[in-house]
């Protein structure tokens, strides 16, 4: 097991290297000159040349790449061209709101969706099942910003239960964090509830047809235990996959929701960086995102073996 985790962590290295090369080339191959954007329209050729030199853009491309990789290995992601803050620091400030929102969203989604899916499978082809399926189709189809604005309209403006926008760190005031984060999280959760409920239902339907469920019933085990002790754990692997992928998607940035609810997360950081052509930040974000994906996939695979004793690496 430990050997497996080590092997998987080693496998991250080539992925990151590949992504690094890709990002580097992508930015060099896209039309447009960062120096020109920084200098603005009125710049003289001499100014441009100076900026290029300061960015290291006048060096041969291989030298540029070696320099960049050299910095990368030391954990130096460069300095933001716009705010002049080191990129690591910038991400460090902005990643916590995103992580907190993502965690809360996933927890909410799982708590709502899994029981929904279990009940839908248990009450297969009854009104409860159809209700869950209908909700799930709606959850997929309505755009996030629409749901967000509906929630703000209902809970913040009409009922005045919750604040409209903003973010407080949970470390500062947990109650305030919850009251401010609950709407964005519910908004984000809608689509994941739909996804997870559907997957839970499908997976449970399959497991409920298995022989050992019949065995459990033949022992006189009650329905709740049949569902949650016997069926759910056996149905968990595909559900977990969806949850993991969802979490990775959430962490890599939830642009629209962060904008609608004015949360200072990395989703907005990325969009701002793209709009301003802040290359070091864009590069760092792409690298970070791919690392998060690889890491979360590893976590999911490890979790499989904890759930199912037959899975051994």
């Amino acid at each position, binding site marked *: 097991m430990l*050997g*497996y985790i*080590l*092997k998987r962590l080693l496998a991250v290295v080539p992925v990151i290297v590949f992504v690094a090369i890709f990002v580097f080339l992508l930015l060099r191959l896209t039309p447009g000159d960062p120096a020109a954007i920084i200098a603005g329209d009125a710049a003289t050729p001499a100014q441009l040349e100076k900026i290029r030199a300061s960015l290291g853009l006048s060096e041969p491309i291989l030298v540029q790449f070696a320099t960049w990789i050299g910095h990368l290995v030391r954990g130096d992601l460069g300095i933001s061209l716009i705010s002049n803050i080191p990129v690591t620091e910038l991400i460090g400030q902005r990643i916590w709101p995103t992580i907190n929102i993502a965690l809360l969203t996933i927890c909410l989604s799982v708590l709502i969706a899994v029981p929904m899916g279990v009940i839908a499978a248990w009450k*297969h*082809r009854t009104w409860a099942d159809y209700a869950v399926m209908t909700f799930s189709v709606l959850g997929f189809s309505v755009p996030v910003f629409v749901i967000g604005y509906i929630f703000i309209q209902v809970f913040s403006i009409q009922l005045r239960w919750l604040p409209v926008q903003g973010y407080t760190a949970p470390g500062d005031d947990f109650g305030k964090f919850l009251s401010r984060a609950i709407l964005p999280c519910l908004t984000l959760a809608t689509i994941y509830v739909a996804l997870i409920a559907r997957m839970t239902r499908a997976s449970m339907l399959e497991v409920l047809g*298995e*022989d*050992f469920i*019949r*065995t*459990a*019933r*033949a*022992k*006189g*085990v*009650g329905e709740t235990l049949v569902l949650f*002790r*016997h069926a759910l*754990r*056996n149905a968990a692997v595909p559900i977990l996959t969806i949850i993991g992928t969802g979490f990775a998607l959430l962490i890599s940035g939830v642009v629209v929701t962060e904008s609608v609810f004015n949360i200072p997360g990395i989703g907005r950081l990325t969009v701002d960086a793209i709009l301003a052509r802040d290359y070091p930040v864009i590069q760092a974000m792409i690298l970070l995102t791919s690392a998060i994906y690889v890491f979360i996939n590893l976590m999911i695979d490890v979790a499989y073996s904890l*759930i*199912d*004793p*037959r899975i051994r690496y």
Partner: protein
Amino acid sequence: MLFKTKSFDDAPVVLSIEDLTVRLSGVNDTVRPVLDRISFQIRAGETVCLVGESGSGKSVTSLATMGLLPKGALEVSNGRIMLGETNLLSLSAGQMRDMRARNLSMVFQEPMTALNPVMRVGAQIEEVLDTHMRLSKKEKKARVLDIMEQVHLPDVERIYRSFPHQLSGGQRQRIMIAMALILEPKLLIADEPTTALDVTTQRQILSLIAELQEKHGTAVLFITHDMGVVAEIADTVQVMKHGELVERAPVETLLRNPQEDYTKSLLRAVPSLTPRPERVSKPPKGGPALSVEDLNKTYGSSGWFVNRSTTLAARDVSFDIPAGRTLGIVGESGSGKSTVARCIMRLIDPTEGSVRVAGTEIARLSRADLRPHRKHIQIVFQDPFRSLNPRWTVGRSLVEGPLNLGQDKASAMARARELMALVGLPEDAVDRYPHQFSGGQRQRIAIARAIAMEPDVLVADEAVSALDVSVQAQVLDLLDELQQKLGIAILFITHDLRVAAQICDEVIVMQKGRVVEHGKAGAVLADPQHPYTRSLIEAAPGRAWDFANFRELGALAAQ
């Protein structure tokens, strides 16, 4: 004494089923019911065997009794199921749950799937106690270990902590039995509990059930399609057909003096353990159709971080099959018989050795070089429900191989129609889909698919094991007939000695990857030399009885 002869007239009635009728949910009375007014009784200590072909309603009877009919698919429309003084059909869901395991229990067919794969088996037995009584942790464990010892599991402390996949099929079935009997119910329903097990394991499980039944006076409703098992364990036999009880009699009466035509036809279909007479005609001249020499297959590999021990799945296997002859490989699960078949088919690659098909060495050919030689050797698999692509018409499955070899579509289709007739199906079967056929018909299609390639060798891997005996006999006849018409050599893999006796000219017995005995079918089965072969034959249930002729084996000689 051949059969059990004890009378149960004085024993109290445990289960009494009266006029039980089960229908498909949501259909009216004009549709034929799945179970039609079934009535019977089981007394304390008695074993009643319910026999019949698939679809006869055996399992539905047992599930109805347990209250486990699939919801929304089947429902009881009439009758009573009396357990002692209680009508089980009048109980609420909660009361019925309370009855299960405490008063009536069930053991299922597939020990591989009947246990929860993610729970330790000890916890699964304990769950029965948790459901029905309150005990301290210590008492619970003591009772579980006690019942595990009663079902003769070795090293109970270790097995208590094991997961199902770490146990053998026989051990898992023992766990199931422990679970069913820990609360000493009055009635045990066993639904084909030994069908998925090897003969030697089957024998142990049968005697275990008998032993515990004796000890606790349990009434047993035993569902099976195997007449050999019936002869071994039944007090009373009931024959079912299309949801009706057609005959009920004490076991000896039923086997010696069957009254109904259906019962007679069931018994006649049971293949005899006596090998068929040796064929007199000489096999045609020329080299063997299939020749295997020193075949070895080793599983297991070592990678960067894994280091598994290797398993010898087949060791030094050698044999020849002449054209027009049948060689059987018999053995229990894990003996390596399927490994040999797959190596010969090159579905897996042999580690060492030579496989010559129609004179060509194929053991070392690359995938690409092998392709033109595939036509010479074809396989029929065990489960006809899974071996045909459900979304393809039968015709499309049949012509795929010939088209790959460059035949044109029209002539391949014409040939497919001929093949349908050859295997005893209507020609328009080519336009239909596999789900429109019964298991026996599908196996005919699978055979037609194999011979569409005009092979020299046909490998039949447990090809009749999933079929009812009457259908089994028909498929065996078909194989025989095709062999005579087309002169194919057949490699027949089976765990069933009766089947091997009926179709094979020569037999190989395998154990743990090795060939332990190899000879003419008559010699191996009538006069086994190796102790393992002998133990296999001794474990075959009902081996002293000649089912097809309703008398003891050897009675013919005595006449």
